[in-house]
């Protein structure tokens, strides 16, 4: 067990051309990425996108078909899980039901031949605010308490990387919020690399300093949460992370720092810095909260671009009102208007104009066959998770 939990940090966790196939199904497809030491990294994706398989390969529970898992300069891809300085907080925790909380937390230390574990375990239990729970059994604890035991059980080993597999999925909303903050606090406190797998984009954005959006075994985009949200790399990301109105158009090249786009007979422009394509079929994207509704085109401020339509639906959801604007060519655009009290509500059936600042739009390459996309990929838009 050389190099385990050593004082000298091993460095970044790197995945190099990592591939995992189950029969003919490719779960993870030639994945390469670097997770800097000490970062809180989130792998975000829908179920079945390969994120859990990636995590299991890092943990050693699954052997890669090809590729490397490097911790510093050492390839650990083919080490047994108990030979890796990496610990996991499992989905639904996997606490040993026949052992007490104390023994669950002490398990890793004991397996490494450490005799006096009392102080360490007590310290760890108090870090996760479970002082005095040592003699109990896992079944006697609530979901949130079990979650914290799972965390303590992994952290006590001072791993170089902590893996979290949907760690909050089984908790109710309030507890989940609380644990998100708690996890973030602990990560800052212990300073080790956290790799967090989740399908909950809100959770990923709340906690992680870097998010990787995975789809079909590949990484679609990687970066800081705000950067990804403001300037998604693909149509999938644009609608998986939050919601976007994507209009199918044709770009006609850059001139004067602007990319000109024709969509549904109208002309628009997007700053070149926010364009990932400047020629051929493109998606012109605007987030619903970046759209503003006014009654007529002459109310649109200068320098803004607009689309006309009829309000087909208005849902009042408290902090905002969510409108659907049916355009002349039949697509329904989402418009979120904050209920800040500064604008009047627009009645359903009335004609309206949605306008936006071109600096808030973005341009993505598009498959020629692809049309407008306004619906989210998952039914969990930002800020609306129940």
């Amino acid at each position: 067990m050389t190099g385990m939990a050593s004082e000298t940090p091993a460095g970044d966790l790197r995945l190099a051309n990592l591939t995992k196939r189950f029969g003919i199904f490719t779960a993870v497809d030639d994945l390469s990425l670097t997770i800097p030491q000490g970062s809180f990294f989130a792998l975000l994706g829908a179920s079945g996108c390969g994120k859990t398989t990636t995590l299991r390969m890092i943990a050693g529970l699954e052997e890669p078909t090809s590729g490397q898992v490097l911790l510093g300069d050492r390839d650990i891809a083919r080490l047994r899980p108990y030979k890796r300085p990496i610990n996991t907080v499992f989905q639904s925790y996997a606490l040993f039901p026949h052992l007490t909380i104390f023994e669950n937390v002490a398990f890793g230390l004991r397996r490494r031949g450490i005799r006096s574990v009392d102080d360490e375990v007590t310290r760890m239990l108090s870090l996760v605010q479970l002082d005095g729970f040592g003699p109990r059994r896992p079944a006697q604890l609530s979901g949130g308490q079990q979650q914290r035991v799972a965390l303590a059980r992994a952290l006590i080993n001072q791993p170089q990387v902590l893996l979290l597999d949907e760690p909050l999925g089984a908790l109710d909303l309030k507890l989940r919020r609380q644990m998100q903050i708690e996890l973030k606090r602990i990560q800052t406190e212990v300073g080790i690399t956290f790799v967090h797998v989740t399908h909950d984009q809100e959770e990923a954005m709340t906690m992680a300093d870097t998010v990787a959006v995975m789809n079909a075994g590949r990484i679609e985009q990687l970066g800081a949460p705000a950067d990804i949200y403001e300037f998604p790399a693909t149509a999938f990301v644009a609608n998986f992370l939050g919601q976007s109105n994507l209009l199918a158009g044709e770009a006609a090249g850059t001139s004067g720092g602007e990319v000109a786009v024709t969509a549904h007979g109208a002309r628009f422009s997007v700053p070149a810095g926010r364009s990932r394509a400047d020629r051929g079929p493109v998606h012109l994207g605007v987030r619903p909260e970046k759209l503003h509704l006014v009654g007529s085109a002459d109310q649109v401020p200068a320098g803004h671009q607009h689309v006309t339509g009829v309000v087909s639906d208005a849902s009042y959801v408290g902090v905002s009102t969510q409108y659907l604007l049916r355009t002349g060519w039949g697509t329904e655009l989402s418009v979120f208007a904050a209920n800040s009290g500064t604008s009047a509500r627009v009645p359903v059936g009335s004609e309206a104009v949605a306008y936006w600042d071109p600096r808030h739009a973005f341009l993505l390459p598009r498959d020629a066959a692809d049309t407008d996309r306004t619906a989210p990929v998952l039914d969990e838009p930002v800020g609306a998770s129940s």
Partner: protein
Amino acid sequence: MTLLAPTGSGQAPPAPPAARSGRHRLLPYLLLLPGAAWLLIFFGVPLVQLAAASLYDPGGSLSTGYALTWAFGNYPDVVQAYWPQFLRSFGYAGLALVLALLLGYPLAYAIAQKAGRWKNLLLVCVVAPMFTSFLVRTLAWKTILSDNGALVGLLRDVHLLAPDGRLLATPFAVVLGLTYNFLPFLVLPLYASLERLDYRLLEAATDLYASPVQAFRRVTLPLSMPGLVAGTLLFFIPASGDYINAELLGTPNEYMIGNVIDSAFLVRLDYPQGAALSFLLMAAILAVVFGYLRRAGTEEVL
């Protein structure tokens, strides 16, 4: 985007350690070997031996030895000699099965759906008879059905039984004994599948205008089918091969095929005949079982 830098590619990944995967491939066979060998040698081989013995020269004997003469004639011979016992075996077992279904279904249903907190206690009551010896329990029926017993006395008094009528040593006693002895085997699997039945399905059925009888026929019965099939087989197989009830509660007039096989092997020492009968019994049961499974359409029970 800077983080998404491809890292060191090009070199072939090291092959997985051969020793580990090699051991892993062999391990299941090592685990299976002793048990499977035991079953093969002491279950599989004997069946072949039994088949061979059924084709021995019927003229041989234990002292002079038997010769395998492929005497297929043994089969028609035993059928001709013992077809009444064969018919009786399946007749009694079938009759007992019908009785057991009538008694066992309400019992399993009541425990699964109506017993509430008494569920476990009632289950123990079903299993409890098996805690004591099969033979001792069967002998107890001899006392219960005895000519001097209270039951016979009562039945004679109310003229359900003639003044000299008997219960013991009648087909009734044998069928009653069979029903009693194998009832738990029917009830337990039936209970298991009725236990999983969601009572809200019945509520939904009644909500959709099903009378209690229709709800039972259209919902409960189809959903309990796997347990019903398994339980029926677990009841029928041992019941048709049983000879203890016929021996203890009946007379030679009630003898089933098991009694004949028992005496062929242990009293008359006529191995070819005993083996032929045994083999026929097995074949007949398999035929009944597979025919039944096909009709019931739940082959996954196997």
